[in-house]
């Protein structure tokens, strides 16, 4: 079972029988429980605590406050570290914070015998604050005289960057005779990941180390940040990552592991568990940044893009987290996906406010950027009277492209084929004709959107991955990856990759799912859709070394030259005749127990990359809109992806289903709301409208399999791309159905009714 086979997930049995152990299953029964005491203001300073009532609660062990913790600032995002200070993440948090910047900020921690006592005590903590004005909107936090979240960031601007091509300016290019200029302002909302398992960890001390078991995407980064936050050598921290119940980027952040590591160190090394509630997870971990994106395009009437101007503002919330990297991504996609003949001018700005902190979330800025871009492209096509598909085909990325900003090259592209497949599936021409200029309460539309996406973070940031393969006596192998299984199925993909390159059957390949930073080779792990592409290359490279070592041993045993041998179906075979010469089991037994030549055959290597490549795809959707009550029903939807060669087609399809569901929620219903005091209003699964199974239409998926020369098996990114295009495709279908352009998300019923009233489709008094 190698590449391209839909083999069953290697963890399927464990997970469906409930035998798979997650962090909370592993916590010792006598672990103490920690609960974070949260600020009840969103901007200000702690003056004092009164713990007299809280400390009386039976079962309370100890209460720690922001005045007790090490006064060390540390960064939280799951980026590979940079040894160059100018490229390091912003260090802006302490374990507990006296200066409060969001509602619910971590100001103290109660440790108790159980959750009930800890919760009760946390509610009884009295806090005296110095209160500052609260800002939920970027225009307010940037205004003159606004209180700064951090003194070093003037106007509450974390960072502002500009990009401009050499040569013509937008204004010059737009002067051309007969050129059409189209402008649009697009708004996206705050949403949350909603992984099933909340952030949870437990920490204890053993053998001179602090051990942290955590539901994380990034165990090696958690180790580093715990070391940084506690001011101890990184080797003093050991992080273990068992199975995890989803992350979607929220666990690409070091959230509460450092606090938990510190708590155990203050309690004699006793195990302390810290698990967030759903309500805390929504508002006090990370969210997808709300963005305001204005786009201005100069286009010829024949559809040629001549020049564009893009301005993007990203609401960072209270802390820097992944910060400016995310709006940079939303910006670069504008110039990567489409080429302008003359000019591109871009400005990106990340602004602190006091709402929940923005961080990594599947798509990393691109869902926002693509919503704006693909909505705008339909607006432009409409303005010049061109079919949106023809318009896109004329301007989208072509093979050989190299982004002038990041240097990322296009090595393979199947975008045109994706568009053709989607167009055919949805019956584009037929339905555009049938649904044109409809009237009445119920109308129909078809729409589409395209996207591209990088396959890793190089060359913007470090790409490194390591793998170790060790032989067992029966000829099977363990494959140890620093890359993490977070539900996406990467352990299964690695099993297939190892089988393919080793010549050992998949049932003899054991990918170790648990990462333990004391023994697991280094890899920054699950983010940026990188693991099959980058860590997969580390695996392939290591497997090749392993094969060489096995064949060298076989060569001695068989007295045949290495280059006449290969491993196939768990045996050493003659390359030319195909004759089976020796089983892997017999070879392994000899290697382990030879009285003259014993050797444990292992291989280990690191793959370092500065290259990258793009994935592509398109979404086509057909909708029904019930105008008087503002409800969109998705009748049919398809995502067609070019992610290069598929390692496991069934898993690839499942990955796309999950992403489409995410983009549907982003487009139609989800939004995390805050009141004027930046208090979260709907941080629970009742009031936050994550779509349920009965809200989700049948999801169609198709692929175009290009063979990418830089992917280990011709494969490219697929982790995040499914979550990109549905929202703008629906928006464009709605535009076609009604003529109404809805430029802000979510396109929920109240907003649609307001737009329809403004457009006169529903009369102002509600009549028709």
């Amino acid at each position, binding site marked *: 079972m190698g590449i391209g086979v839909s083999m069953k997930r290697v963890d399927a049995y464990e997970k469906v029988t409930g035998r798979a152990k997650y962090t909370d299953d592993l916590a010792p029964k006598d672990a103490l429980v920690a609960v974070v005491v949260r600020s009840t203001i969103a901007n200000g300073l702690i003056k004092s605590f009164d713990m007299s009532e809280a400390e009386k609660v039976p079962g309370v062990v100890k209460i720690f406050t922001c005045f007790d913790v090490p006064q060390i600032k540390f960064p939280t995002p799951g980026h590979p570290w940079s040894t160059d200070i100018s490229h390091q993440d912003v260090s802006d948090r302490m374990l507990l914070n006296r200066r409060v910047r969001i509602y619910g900020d971590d100001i103290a921690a109660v440790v108790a015998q159980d959750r009930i006592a800890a919760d*009760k005590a946390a509610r009884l903590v009295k806090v005296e604050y110095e209160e500052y004005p609260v800002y939920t909107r970027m225009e307010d936090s940037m205004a003159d005289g606004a209180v700064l979240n951090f003194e070093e960031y003037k106007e509450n601007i974390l960072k502002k960057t500009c990009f401009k091509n050499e040569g013509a300016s937008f204004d010059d290019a737009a002067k051309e005779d007969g050129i059409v200029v189209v402008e649009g302002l697009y708004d996206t909302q705050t949403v949350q990941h909603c992984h099933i398992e909340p952030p949870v960890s437990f920490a204890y001390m053993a053998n001179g180390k602090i051990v942290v078991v955590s539901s994380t995407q990034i165990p090696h980064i958690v180790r580093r940040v715990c070391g940084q936050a506690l001011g101890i050598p990184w080797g003093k921290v050991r992080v273990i990552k068992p199975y995890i119940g989803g992350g979607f980027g929220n666990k690409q952040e070091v959230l509460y592991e450092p606090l938990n590591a510190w708590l155990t160190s203050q309690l004699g090394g006793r195990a302390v568990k810290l698990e967030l509630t759903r309500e805390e997870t929504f508002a006090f971990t990370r969210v997808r940044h709300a963005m305001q994106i204005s786009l201005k395009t100069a286009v010829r009437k024949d559809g040629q893009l001549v020049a564009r101007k893009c301005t993007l503002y990203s609401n960072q919330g209270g802390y820097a987290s992944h910060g400016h990297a995310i709006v940079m991504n939303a910006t670069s996609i504008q110039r990567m996906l489409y080429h302008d003949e003359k000019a591109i001018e871009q400005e990106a700005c990340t602004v602190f406010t006091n709402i929940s902190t923005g961080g990594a979330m599947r798509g990393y800025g691109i869902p926002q950027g693509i919503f704006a871009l693909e909505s705008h492209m339909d607006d432009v096509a409409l303005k010049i009277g061109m079919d949106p598909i023809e318009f896109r085909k004329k301007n989208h990325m072509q093979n050989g492209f190299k982004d002038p900003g990041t240097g990322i090259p296009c090595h393979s592209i199947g975008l045109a084929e994706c568009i053709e497949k989607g167009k055919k599936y949805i019956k584009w021409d037929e339905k555009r004709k049938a649904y044109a200029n409809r009237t009445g309460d119920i109308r129909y539309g078809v729409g589409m959107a395209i996207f591209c996406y990088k396959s890793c973070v190089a060359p913007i940031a470090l790409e490194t991955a390591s793998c170790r393969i060790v032989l067992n006596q029966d000829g099977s192998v363990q494959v140890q990856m620093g890359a993490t299984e977070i539900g996406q199925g990467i352990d299964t993909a690695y099993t297939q990759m190892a089988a393919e390159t080793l010549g050992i059957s998949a049932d003899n390949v054991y990918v170790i799912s648990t990462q333990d930073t004391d023994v697991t080779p280094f890899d920054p792990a699950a983010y940026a859709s990188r693991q099959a592409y980058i860590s997969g290359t580390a695996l392939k490279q290591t497997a090749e070394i392993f094969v060489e070592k096995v064949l060298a041993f076989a060569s001695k045993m068989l007295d045949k030259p290495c280059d006449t041998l290969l491993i196939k179906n768990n045996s050493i075979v003659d390359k030319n005749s195909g004759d089976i010469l020796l089983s892997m089991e017999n070879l392994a037994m000899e290697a382990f127990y030879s009285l003259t030549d014993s050797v444990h055959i292992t291989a280990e290597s690191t793959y370092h990359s500065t290259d990258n490549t793009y994935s592509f795809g398109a979404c086509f959707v057909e909708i029904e809109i019930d105008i008087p009550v503002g409800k969109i029903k998705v009748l049919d939807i398809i995502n067609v992806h070019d992610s290069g060669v598929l390692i496991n087609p069934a898993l690839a399809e499942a990955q796309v289903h999950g992403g489409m569901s995410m983009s549907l929620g982003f487009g139609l*219903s989800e939004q995390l709301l805050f009141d004027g005091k930046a208090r979260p209003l709907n941080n629970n699964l*009742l009031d936050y409208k994550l779509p349920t199974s009965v809200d989700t239409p049948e999801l169609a998926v198709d692929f175009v399999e290009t063979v990418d020369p830089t992917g280990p098996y011709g494969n490219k990114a697929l982790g995040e791309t499914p979550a990109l295009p549905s929202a703008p495709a629906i928006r464009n279908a709605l535009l076609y159905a009604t003529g109404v352009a809805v430029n802000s998300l979510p396109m929920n019923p109240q907003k649609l009714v307001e737009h329809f009233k403004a457009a006169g489709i529903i009369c102002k008094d*509600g009549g028709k």
Partner: protein
Amino acid sequence: MYDIKSIYEAKSVDDAIKALSGDPKAVVICGGSDVLIKIREGKLSGASLVSINGLEELKGVSLDEDGTIVILPATTFSKVTGSKIIEKYIPALGFAADQAGGPQLRHVGTIGGNVCNGVTSADTASTLLTLNAELEITGPNGKRSVKLEDFYEGPGKVKLSHGELLTAIKIKKPDYEGFDGCYIKYAMRNAMDIATLGCAVHVKFDGSKTKIDELRLAFGVAAPTPIRCYKAEAVLKGRTVSEALGEIGSLALLEVNPRTSWRASKEFREQLVRELSGRALKEAAAKAGGVSS
């Protein structure tokens, strides 16, 4: 883990009333789908509970000799929907009960809890209003009867004193015989949601099936409590369906009083009142075989 100080499992209605009377702070729990949430949120943490969950005498749906349908309060949503009596005589109520939450909630949540919780979004409330439901309340001093619409005092508040229990919901024969109904739950999701607006209609036609003999219209989330629209009902009596469809939305708007919250604006809810009252009437009329000219 829930912060519960104590739980007393009552052995009978009288026993429950006695237990409640003996502890002024005790809280009644039945299905638990509201109470446990409040305990978890901290609003009722450390509560002393008196459970009526195990009381068989409070469960089931029956038909009295005079045709009165008696729904006992500890009947779960799913048992209400699954009741043969409800299915035969008042299917709109069974449908409304089936709109609450999801399957898990409907297997523990009860119709009595839905009524006593007093919230305007309760899925069964508007349909029960259109059926002129009457409540039997039992307390330390015996039984009393109250009309459902008089039971509501304000948002989340009902006229139930400490120590009193809702012991039956009654619907008299003239209130359902010849009527057909419809409940539209308008929410952001198709399941696991609370209503942005709930609209219930029951309608009865004259012999010729052309004119409305009696129309009952009620809303949830259109006012602080579930409400009936008596004025609209009076105006539409005697109208044909098509006449009524042209008027019902604007008439209903004269009687509702929705508010703006972060969940939805007043204007949006008004638009829903206007639109859904007509849709509910249309569907109820179709079931009743009303001839639309």
